[in-house]
């Protein structure tokens, strides 16, 4: 099982490669990818350097082109696909069906992965993208139970990649427009969710408050840790109660079920966080590498070490973790 790690900068890429990532994924510094954040990502020259650095050390580089190009900007996305082929990246991670078709027709030797933003949650959808558009790997949305992942792996015509660690999307990726409803920008359209430019913090007599384009996302008591105001992790009123109506701030962590994933034939496990620091990438990559190696060596006796979990919790949202949908025992 391969370890796929994020890089939002050259130092982060080096951190991933140096700490044992089999592959590193990154994006151009524009709206063609789903981490279009200020100060992040790569230009052509930096990707060249990234490719050299990774390839010399036996790691691969995957380029995320995983937003949905609208008609007026179509050429910008197809140019990005051309550049990916020209640079010789090891695969392009794409979500848009039209763009996948362009890539498959124009650059038949470019390996294509279906992005998590492509919302492929079942074998028919994966087969469609494989038969029609030639994808060779699929990244599963974080909505499937472990049993469902197993079923997909058993019936998928292509390699299956799952998320292993990082911030947790609880909606079907690629099918969430909550962010654009509040701010005008979403992952699909602009490569951002709850964008930083729409965030406002306020100190009030009731405590600290976070707003997104004016909409109150959360209110914190004195001394309570305040997290980034991602829309789906705010506290809202539903019925009588004010609750985390969608999800608590927490991170996905699959270390507990690593042997299951390995045994069922999952091809790759992905770490979220191109927006995070090189230190985060180094830390998470190191722990995941150790866990994967330990599990591969002796899956029967594998057990996540306490210091791995502690190290990961330290860089987790809300300093806590969950298996997300994977722990569901029902449909």
């Amino acid at each position, binding site marked *: 099982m391969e370890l796929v790690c994020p890089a939002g900068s050259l130092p982060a890429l080096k951190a991933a490669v140096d700490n044992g990532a089999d592959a590193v994924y990154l994006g151009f510094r524009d709206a063609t990818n789903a981490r279009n954040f200020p100060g992040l990502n790569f230009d052509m020259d930096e990707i060249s350097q990234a490719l050299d650095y990774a390839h010399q050390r036996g790691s691969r580089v995957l380029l995320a082109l995983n937003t949905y190009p609208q008609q007026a900007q179509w050429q910008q996305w197809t140019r990005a696909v051309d550049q990916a082929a020209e640079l010789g990246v090891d695969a392009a991670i794409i979500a848009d069906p039209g763009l996948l078709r362009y890539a498959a027709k124009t650059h038949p030797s470019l390996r294509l992965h279906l992005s998590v933003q492509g919302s492929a949650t079942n074998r028919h959808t994966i087969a469609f993208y494989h038969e029609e558009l030639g994808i060779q790997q699929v990244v599963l949305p974080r909505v499937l139970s472990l049993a469902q992942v197993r079923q997909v792996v058993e019936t998928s015509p292509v390699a299956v990649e799952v998320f292993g660690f990082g911030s947790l999307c609880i909606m079907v990726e690629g099918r969430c427009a909550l962010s654009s409803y509040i701010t005008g920008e979403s992952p699909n359209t602009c490569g951002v969710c709850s964008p930083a430019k729409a965030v406002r913090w306020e100190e009030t007599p009731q405590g600290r408050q976070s707003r997104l384009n004016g*909409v109150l996302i959360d209110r914190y008591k004195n001394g309570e840790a305040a997290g980034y105001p991602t829309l789906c992790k705010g506290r809202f009123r539903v019925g009588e109660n004010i609750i985390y109506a969608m999800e608590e701030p927490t991170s996905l962590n699959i270390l507990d079920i690593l042997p299951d994933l390995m045994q069922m034939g999952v091809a790759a496990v992905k770490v979220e966080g191109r927006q995070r620091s090189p230190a985060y990438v180094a830390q998470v990559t190191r722990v995941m590498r150790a866990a994967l190696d330990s599990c591969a060596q002796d899956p029967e006796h594998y057990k996540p070490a306490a210091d791995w979990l502690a190290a990961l919790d330290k860089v987790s949202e809300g300093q806590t973790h969950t298996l997300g949908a994977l722990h569901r025992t029902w449909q």
Partner: protein
Amino acid sequence: MKLSLGPLQYFWPADKVREFYRQVAEWPVEIVYLGEVVCAKRRELKLQDWLQIADMLTEAGKEVVLSTLTLLEAESELASLQRICENGDFKVEANDMACVRLICARPFVAGPHLNMYNASTLQLLKDNGAIRWVMPMELSAATLADIQAERPQGMETEVFVYGHMPLSFSARCFTARAHNLPKDQCQFRCLDYPHGMPLQTQEDEEIFIVNGIQLQSGLSCNLLGEMDKLNELKVDILRLSPQAEGIKEVIDAFDAARKGEQVAELPLAGQQWCNGYWHGEAGMVNVSKQFAGN
């Protein structure tokens, strides 16, 4: 322009659903989308029941399309989907590529959740049998104009013009969560909320509506004031979303407006609307419109 009634997003008792569509038979909509699109656990009506309603509406002169689930995970869900695709009588609306595959190039409607953001994707779907596409919620009139200029020949365009917009889908059930129930023991609480459950900020601003595994826009989208633009952009079909009360009056207003009558406002007092997506802004925004002659 034709009017369509989109698929029912909420979970209503079977009798209420049948009664609702008996009324729809008399309303001035040309197309009716039927079936469960949100949650596979909602089984008040089986496929046979939906087909009975479909027959009744067909006899009343409506074009009926069977709509399908947006999130498909379990094998049982795929099997149900296949039965719908192979019904033999009615066209199907696909909201996931699994449906597009199972349709096997028979004529189908590409639903709003297929992520069609450009003409290249439309062409791909047309090559697989799509005869119509429904614009995704978050696209603007400007993007629609760009796509329409490149739209594959013979493909109809449908735009969601009225109702709470379906914005996201999850594996978790937010209605069950609001009742502190696990999803597999949800007790079908959605039945208690024919309009869904409002989700408000701590300042009582209604930003979303909780509808099982789906979240909808807190405000209802309303493009009644955009009739000229919709015409100019050669939109073929206007989609209105079913709601428990008042939808007949809304349909009448759109019916009058498409016939060229001046209808400045919907007959629902005190409601707030949004149309931000259409204007390229945040979806929740209401861009007020200057009516010609006002």
